[in-house]
């Protein structure tokens, strides 16, 4: 189980990285933490011609609070963001959700942007970015950049709006808004496994933004009403996701979890059980 051969480049500037990407196009893959990509390479589920390692680009390694959002550079690991001292105040949803990502050992190297780029339908970070209404910043050759809203960025299983010559330079998570409660819950087979269902909620007085991961081919977010209409709205949401059976969970089970856990999460009845608290190292 060894990767096929590839060239390896380790640029030290974004510009250099973008030039390499432009030249190689779809035959190149960016490697940052490599926690998804390396497994795929080892299994030979991908055989890129060139790996562009962006870990030596210093200005991608920053976490910055800017107007209304927290900007996380493409070199920032999940552990670094989780250990960011003001994370719980600035983006409380991330502080709750990130301990569910894999294990401490993979968070130590896996990057935030890498997870967004990989767009695994069960992953926590794409779900959070979508639910919070965040953005992805992409850069191409000659320093041109564009921003894509999370809702447009995730296009399907492992598929995003990133074009083959674009480098994700940062993602932007909107900061906590007053009067909102942020909640996260996940059901997985084991600690650290891919979510069977993951739920992220931004709860306001008048409505709820509920994001669901692990069910459709990408994370999906809906605005739902409070009160007696919530149950029907959740049912409609659950069915709209076209859940699938797989080896670990059935489609009906997934819909059931969306409905039942959704209502409890929104109504604040989800107990902060021991297991959830444990994920905070």
């Amino acid at each position, binding site marked *: *189980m*060894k*990767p*096929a*051969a590839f060239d390896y480049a380790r640029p030290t500037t974004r510009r250099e990285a973008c030039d390499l990407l432009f030249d190689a196009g779809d035959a190149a*893959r960016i490697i940052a933490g490599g926690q*998804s*990509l390396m497994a*795929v390479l080892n*299994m*030979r*589920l*991908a*055989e*890129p011609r060139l790996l562009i390692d962006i870990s030596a680009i210093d200005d991608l390694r920053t976490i910055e609070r800017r107007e209304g959002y927290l900007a996380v550079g493409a070199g920032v690991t999940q552990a670094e963001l989780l250990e960011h001292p003001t994370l719980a105040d600035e983006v409380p949803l991330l502080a709750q959700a990130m301990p569910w990502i894999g294990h401490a050992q993979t968070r130590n190297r896996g990057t935030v942007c890498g997870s967004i780029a*990989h*767009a695994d*339908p*069960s992953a926590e970070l794409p779900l959070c970015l979508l639910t919070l209404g965040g953005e992805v910043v992409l850069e191409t050759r000659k320093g041109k950049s564009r921003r894509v809203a999370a809702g447009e960025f995730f296009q*399907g*299983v*492992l*598929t*995003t709006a990133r074009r083959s010559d674009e480098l994700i330079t940062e993602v932007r998570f909107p900061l906590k808004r007053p009067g909102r409660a942020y909640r996260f819950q996940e*059901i997985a*087979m*084991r*600690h*650290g*496994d*891919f979510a*069977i269902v993951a739920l992220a909620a931004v709860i306001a007085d008048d409505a709820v933004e509920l994001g669901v991961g692990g069910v*459709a*081919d990408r994370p999906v977010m809906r605005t739902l009403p409070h009160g007696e209409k919530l149950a*029907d709205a959740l*049912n*409609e949401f659950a*069915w*709209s*996701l*076209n859940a*699938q*059976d*797989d*080896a*670990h*969970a*059935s*489609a*009906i*089970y997934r*819909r*059931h*979890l969306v*409905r*039942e*856990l959704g209502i*409890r999460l929104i109504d604040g009845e989800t107990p902060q059980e021991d*297991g959830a608290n*444990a994920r905070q190292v």
Partner: protein
Amino acid sequence: MNAFESPTLDKRSGHIGKRQTRVEDDALLRGQGRYGDDLATPPGTLHAAVLRSPHAHARLTSLDVSRALAMPGVHGVLTGDDVKRWAQPFPVGVRQPMDHWCVAVDKVRYVGEPVAVVIAENRYLAEDALEGVCVGYEPLPVAVDTEAAIADGAVILHEAVGANVVNDRRFCYGDPQTAFDTAERRVSLKVRFPRSSCTPIECYFVLAQYDVASGGYDVTSNFQGPFALHSVMTRALKVPGNLLRLRTPPDSGGSFGIKQGVFPYVVMMGLAARKVGAPVKWVEDRLEHLQASSSSTNRVTEVEAAVTHDGRVTALRLDQLDDCGAYLRAPEPATFYRMHGNLTGAYAIRHLEVRNRVVMTNKTPTGLNRGFGGPQVYFALERLMQRIATELDLDPLEVIRRNLIPSGSFPYRAAAGALLDSGDYPKAVALGIEEGGLAELLERRKAARRAGRLYGIGYTVAVEPSISNMGYITTAMTPEERRKAGPKNGAVSTATISVGPLGDISAHVSSTPQGQGHRTVVAQVIAEVLGVPLESISVNVELDTGKDAWSIASGNYSSRFSGAVAGAVYNAALKIKQRLAVIAAEQWGVDAERVRFGEGRVFVDGGDASASFHRIAGATHWSPGTLPESESGGLRETAFWTPPELVAPDDNDLINSSLCYGFIFDYCGVEIDRITGAVRIDRYVTLHDAGRMLNPDLVDGQVRGGFAQGLGVALMEEFAYGDDGSFISGTFADYLVPTAVEVPEPLILHMETPSPFTPLGAKGVGEGNNMSTPVCVANGVADALGIKDIELPLTPSKVRTLMGFDEPPRPEGVGEEVAKQTPGGSLLTASDSVEIPGTPRQVFDNLLDPDTLAAIIPGCHALELTGENAYRADVTVGVGMIRARFDARVALRDLDPPHALRLSGAGTSSMGSAEGSAKIRLTEIEGGKTRLDYDYEASVGGKVASVGGRMLQSASKMIIAQIFTRLSRHLGGAAPKASLWQRIKRLVTGKGGQS
């Protein structure tokens, strides 16, 4: 009586039975262990990679290795032709015309079956060249489900056998018919026990050399035994036993039975070394291991009990189907017969009827796995006992107690022939109830239920056999066949102790441990007998069939170490001791009976004479002339030991299948989350009577490890297959093994009833919880939910489904009609439609146009015409970062211009195989447009199916949708052109028109 109480032991040092920390640990904790892949290799060693079938069942039509041979660093490719030339099929335990070669020769019968072996300068290059081996497969229908495989019309795996049942035996003990005819009640149950494996963290390892001069093979492998398989390997290699020198590395990274299954690779890599004329090393990777190494045997059991009104079982009837996969690989069908003598478990049931059928299916061949045969038996038997209680409205524990073999009846001959050596089952159960806190657990259940929670208690008793009778497997043969073949029985264990010139002690045992701590226990036993410090003893557990004492029973399986091997060590130590006593007695002029050993000295009981151990022992090397006449000089003793109780099956098929039978009483409290269906183990109590414990720390370690594995089988582990035979548990993210978060600490209780049949009174304890825990948890869940049919693993989704869904309907217009889905399967189906500019005729003609086809197939590099509307395509397909290049055949069929046609494709890549077919309907709609509706069916096999299950449905949908959106884009004004075939036809025939 127990030999351990022998009067020859003096000044008990207390080594035996002590909680002794392990002598193995120091090196392992420093990273200085020496596992197979850590060992130095001979200069010029090459590396192998195995090409494996992506199909569950296919005929091999061609094999072309020329491209692989031309690739960098490649030295050779071993194929079925080489294997046919140099080797022969493995001998099979039942008399049936089934050829199992180490590399497929004509057909492949399971996903992952070896098809060729590439040998190159390193593993990276070898894997590169796998892509250069071109194999032609003609896929065949499959037999995957066990029961379907024995139904009429099922495809036959081994044509020469003529059926998928390759062994069918019926047994009758006592008078079950009368018991059932006169039964007050009958209770029956059908259960299915899934496949799993204890998945050691170290995979298989083989380093093979071939010696041209002698024609012999020298192989190092982390093979765990039984060494009866050495004969199977030499038969396959067509060499006498002494021309296969098989060695094991000093350390092995776990096995739990699974490393028995490395033996076909010993043969394969031996042949690979012969092929390239160089040493060949192969380290199995995890994907190979999960998919194709070995597995426990899945079983379907129909069980029925004749029962009195008060729950006493008078007779049992078992109809068992063992699914051994694609080949009956030695020692199968041992999964049945390892447990045969003790099929009635811990119960005094005198009447028993059994039918055992061995079934072949298109799955990985099965073999040893911790608990071997036990989990399957107890899942049926102990679920049945729980059902009897439920149906008779009795307390399940009371039903168990009423049926236990009574105290004071040991040794007890069970109905099918097991001679249960020792125990006191009612006392053990009473002890477990008391010390395990059952009363409190019952209160917890009551309180939980009062609060509306789902809480259940499960009970299990089990008899844990150890030290297998090497003849039990012949129970699979009829008495007539056995008479012809000659009797097989016994279980020879060996131990060698040498004392060096300075009194230093070295010991060797042929038990090939994989982490159990054998070296520690061997040292404990020797230290006890010879009265020397434990630290002065060096124990070697490498086995080299070229120079060590070994026999067919050597190896580490059937929990034989503590009873048999430690007993042989004890006997060898006694021999040394006896010789030294005679030497010392002669020097001191005393009776040898009075010589004692302790604290590193030899001395006379009640006398003054005393000398250090090394002084007396050293005399055998330095001054043999001074020794008594009976002494040969030198000091090395080998003990062989086999118990007389292990006799061959008799003509009535009575078989004492093991020497020792431990006892287990488990119970647990489980709580089920009403919403998620997650099963939480609230408390788990496990009591073991494994005879005398030689080292309670190690016993507890075995119990904890077995419990964790048993829990995995209960809750999450399963080797799952799709309906098409694709394997879908191919990574550790798909095959789920419990982590520290999922495994609670069980309460471990002990009772010690020494075995009268082993030298030290010890029995095996390594496998018990793998047998008892899965069914104990299942009984707890059955109690919590009040349901009958429980199938493992009890995943949250499955448990929640058992509870039933009251699902609100799908709102009109929301989501899609749910297409037919095979849960966990690999058949992917869906329907969709797309609007396309142009008339149906234009669309239809465009689809027949190769240029259009090339443009709309995503990732198409080249399209080559091979026949009418048939093409060979070179395409890169995938989603996101996951991509593979397929050599594909694309065809357009069932043409009904301009209304309908079928677009199909099939291809293979290094990632596996894929095929799909889409039925396309074209309907004219307003605005000169066409609505294209399509229904497709796709399936994938090989690696991509085994590792990508979670995303396949979405991925295939996306890829297929791309074809039609690209068509739509392509037709944004393009005029249809005649197809290439039409153009060629025009050229050839001068005629135009539609074909």
